[in-house]
């Protein structure tokens, strides 16, 4: 279980509606704005913006609904994305660049190239992905602030 310090470091919690292609990306933009206001380093902001954007697109594309939460502690920013949805059958396969189960509506939006999860992993210092078939998916991504 996460400790109290971690839970208290919750900076923002955002609801994401599945299949809402019109507003896709709005949560990521909001998170980026709030990090800019806090004066976070630009490279850190870009990493978090890409991670949250990809996570948001994934929830919209594949899940019924979900939440994206951001925790800020002195040494790291943690993003947690939880969704209610079909889950991921084979996580290793889903992480392969180019593997995708996206439909036409997702591709029209400019996504579904099978780059999302590997991209999140690339920009994360710590990356955890777990899923339960028929229930949903949990993603945790940590971006360290101490330049590692």
């Amino acid at each position, binding site marked *: 279980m996460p400790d109290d310090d971690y839970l208290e470091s919750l900076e923002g919690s955002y609801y994401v509606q599945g299949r809402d292609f019109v507003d896709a990306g709005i949560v990521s933009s909001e998170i980026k704005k709030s990090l800019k206001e806090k004066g976070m380093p630009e490279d850190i902001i870009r990493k978090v913006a890409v991670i949250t954007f990809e996570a948001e697109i994934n929830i919209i594309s594949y899940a019924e609904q979900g939440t994206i939460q951001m925790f800020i502690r002195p040494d790291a920013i943690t993003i947690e994305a939880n969704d209610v949805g079909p889950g991921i059958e084979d996580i290793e396969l889903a992480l392969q660049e180019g593997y995708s189960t996206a439909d036409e509506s997702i591709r029209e939006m*400019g996504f579904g*190239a099978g780059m999302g999860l590997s991209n999140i992993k690339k920009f994360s210092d710590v990356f955890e992905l777990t899923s339960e078939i028929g229930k949903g998916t949990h993603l945790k991504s940590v971006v360290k602030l101490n330049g590692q």
Partner: protein
Amino acid sequence: MKLSEIRDILDARVIVGEDKLDLEITTAFGADLMSDVLAFARSGCLLITGLSNPQAVRTAYALDIAAILVCRGKSLTDKFIEIAKELGIPILWTRYIMFESCGKLFQEGVTGCIRKANEVEDKHIA
């Protein structure tokens, strides 16, 4: 080169960002696939794309991309323009296809923001 020079080279219209035409652009990335933009593009570059939906603007915003050039004369929605204004991303619009747009800019000295994909394993967004 300045954004105003890019406008002139490509007979482009400035849709958003009349006040940012002095912006210096030295690199660019061309793609219609935002997944690839998020994976490979770098901050400060010009995004050349035929995708004129809100996600193109939000992608540019996430990566601190300097400006977007919409090519192939793609029609622009009010929502696209509204979000670009809100997020402060200049939008240029040209009828040139992507190949012509890239070629003309490359000829004038604009280079790719990276040259090859995955050439160096890089955990940081430069």
